C-alpha cells in the first residue's frame, strides 16, 4: 500500500461555540486527486486553511509526509511542498502578472529546485505559459478577467513546485468553455512533467468545488462534508449516491 501523503486525524476548528470542522479524518495518497464537496458553510475552505496553516486547529493533527505540520507557519508549510489557490482570488493587483508569479518562484523551495533557478523571470514565464496567460505577462494583474485570475492563481501555486496542491473552487465563476480548459490544465498538471524550466512531479490535489460534474471527471476520490463533519469518503459514483450527501445538498427526502 502506498504511503499516504497527507493524513488528517480528528481535525477540529472552533470559533467560539461554533464548530466549523468537527473531528474530520481522512488520508490522501501520493498522486491522488480528492474532491472536497459539501454545501455552503460545510467547512471546506476552513479545512484547506487549516492545512495551509492560515488557521490554527483547535484539535486533531495534520501530517504531511509523516511530519506533523500543526502550528507551522504558512510559508514553512509551502516550503514543505503544499501550495494553495484562494477561492476569492488574491492577486497583487498593482504588480505586473509576471511579478505576481515571481513572488512564489522566489520561495526557498522553488529556489532550491531545478537547474535554472537563478532565472526567476524565466521560471515565472513558464508557469504563466502553462496557465495560458503568458501573453499578458506585462499587464497589471488588475486588468485580468475572472477566468484569467483563476489561471494566475494556478500559475502562482505551481511556481512553488508543490507536491500537494489545494485548489479552492478552481471552476468558480468560469464559463463552460473556461471550465473545460481549466479541467484539462489540472489534469495535465497532475500528469506531471517539465513545463519549460518548471518541473512538476504531478502533485496530489485536494479540489474544493461545487461543479460536481466536472469534479467527478478528474477526482479519484470524493470527501463530503456537512456542517463541519465528514459524511462520506469514497469513489465519486458511490459518494453522489450516498443518501447522507443527497440529504446535505437537497434537504430531507432528497430530490
Amino acid at each position, binding site marked *: 500500500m502506498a504511503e499516504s501523503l497527507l493524513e488528517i486525524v480528528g481535525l477540529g476548528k472552533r470559533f467560539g461555540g461554533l464548530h466549523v470542522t468537527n473531528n474530520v479524518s481522512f488520508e490522501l495518497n501520493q498522486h491522488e486527486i480528492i474532491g472536497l464537496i459539501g454545501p455552503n458553510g460545510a467547512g471546506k475552505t476552513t479545512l484547506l486553511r487549516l492545512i495551509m496553516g492560515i488557521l490554527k486547529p483547535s484539535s486533531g493533527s495534520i501530517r504531511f509526509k509523516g511530519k506533523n505540520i500543526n502550528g507551522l507557519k504558512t510559508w514553512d508549510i*509551502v516550503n514543505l511542498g503544499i501550495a494553495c489557490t484562494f477561492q476569492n482570488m488574491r492577486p497583487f493587483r498593482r504588480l505586473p502578472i509576471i511579478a505576481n508569479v515571481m513572488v512564489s518562484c*522566489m520561495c526557498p523551495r522553488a529556489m532550491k529546485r531545478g537547474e535554472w533557478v537563478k532565472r526567476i523571470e524565466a521560471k515565472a514565464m513558464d508557469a504563466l505559459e502553462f496557465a495560458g496567460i503568458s501573453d499578458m505577462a506585462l499587464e497589471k494583474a488588475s486588468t485580468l478577467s475572472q477566468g484569467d485570475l483563476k489561471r494566475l492563481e494556478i500559475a502562482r501555486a505551481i511556481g512553488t513546485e508543490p507536491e500537494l496542491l489545494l485548489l479552492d473552487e478552481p471552476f468558480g465563476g468560469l464559463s463552460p468553455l473556461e471550465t473545460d480548459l481549466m479541467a484539462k490544465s489540472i489534469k495535465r498538471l497532475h500528469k506531471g512533467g517539465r513545463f519549460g524550466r518548471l518541473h512538476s512531479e504531478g502533485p496530489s490535489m485536494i479540489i474544493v468545488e461545487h461543479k460536481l460534474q466536472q469534479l467527478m471527471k478528474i477526482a479519484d476520490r470524493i470527501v463530503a462534508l456537512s456542517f463541519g463533519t465528514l459524511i462520506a469518503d469514497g469513489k465519486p459514483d458511490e459518494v453522489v449516491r450516498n443518501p447522507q450527501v443527497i440529504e446535505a445538498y437537497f434537504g430531507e427526502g432528497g430530490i
Partner: protein
Amino acid sequence: MGFIWFYIRKIFTLFKCEVLVLPSRVALLVFVVALLLIPAFTQDPYLLWVLILTAIFSIFAASWDLLSGFTGQVNFGHALFFGVAAYTSGLINVYAKVPNFLSIPLAAIAGVLTGLIVGIPCLRLRGTYLALTTLAFPIILTGLIFALPEVTGGELGISGLDRLSTSRVYDYYITVVLMLVLTTIMWKITDSKTGILLHAIREDELAVRAGGINTTRYKLLAFCLSGFFAGIAGGLYAHIMRTVGPSTLEVALSFQVIIWSVFGGIVSIYGPVAGVFILFPLAEFLRILPKVRMLVFAVLVLLTLIYMPEGLIPWIRNKIEKECPRCKVRSIATRKTCRICAASLD
C-alpha cells in the same frame, strides 16, 4: 587610443538612446547637474543651508516611502528613527568624542536597531492600528528624554557637536552626494526582486505567505532598511545643526515627512525626494510672508492632492510620457508610436 574612442562612443550612444529619449530622465540629469553646480555660481550661506537641509530631509522622506509606500507598513512615527540616530550621533560625539565620520554610521546602526525594536511588536498589526502604534514610539522616547535630562540635556538637548566639515560648501557636497547615492540605492532596492516582494506584501500579505515567502523577515528587513537610511539622515542633521533636541522626535516631523511624500507621490522613491525639494525650500522662502505662509503651503498641498491624487511627480510623468500598451516601455508623449516596438500609442 582606439579603445578610449570606442568607450566614448559607447557612452555617447547610451546617453543618446537611454537618457535623451525620455523627458523624465533628462529632467533627472538636469536636476543632478544643477545640484552639483550650484556652489560654482552662488555660495550664499542661507541658500546652501536650505539645500543641505533639503537633501537631508530627502533621504528621510525616501526612507519613509521605502517602509510605508512600498511595503505598506504605514509609519506615523518615522521621526523616531531620525531622532534616535540624531541623539546617538550627538551623545557619542559629545561624550565619547567619536568623530563624525564614525558617529554617522553608528547613528545609522542605531536606526537599524530601532527598526528592529519597532518592527517586532508591529509585525502583527496593519493599517490604522499599525499607524497608531508607530505614532506612540517617538512620544514614549520624548518622555524618556525629558526624564533623563542629565544625559540627554532634557528640553535643551545636546549641543556642541563637531561640524560635519570645515566649510559650508563641503557640507553641501557631502549631504547632496550622500542624498544622491542613498536615494539611488533605495530606488535600486525597490526595483530589485526584494522590491517586488516588499511591494507584494503591501498588496496582500497572506497571498505572499501562501507563495512560501517568510513575510516577517521581509517586513523586518523593510523596517531595518528604512531605519538605516533615516538614521543616516538623522546623523547628518545632528552634525549640520550641531545640536540635537527633542524637536527631532516631534510628531510634527513625522507628519511633515508624510506630507512631503504624499505630495511628491508615494511608491516611487523619487516622488518624496521631489516633494521635499519643492515643499521644504518653499516653506523656507515663504518666511518673508509670515502671516500667509502656512495658508499658502496648505492650499498648495490641498490642491495637489485633490487634482493629482497620485502625487505631483507621477502626474507630471504621465502627462509628458506615455506607456506603450504592448511592451510597457515609456516614450515621450508627443510620439505616435512606441520607441521600442513601434506599437501605436494612441
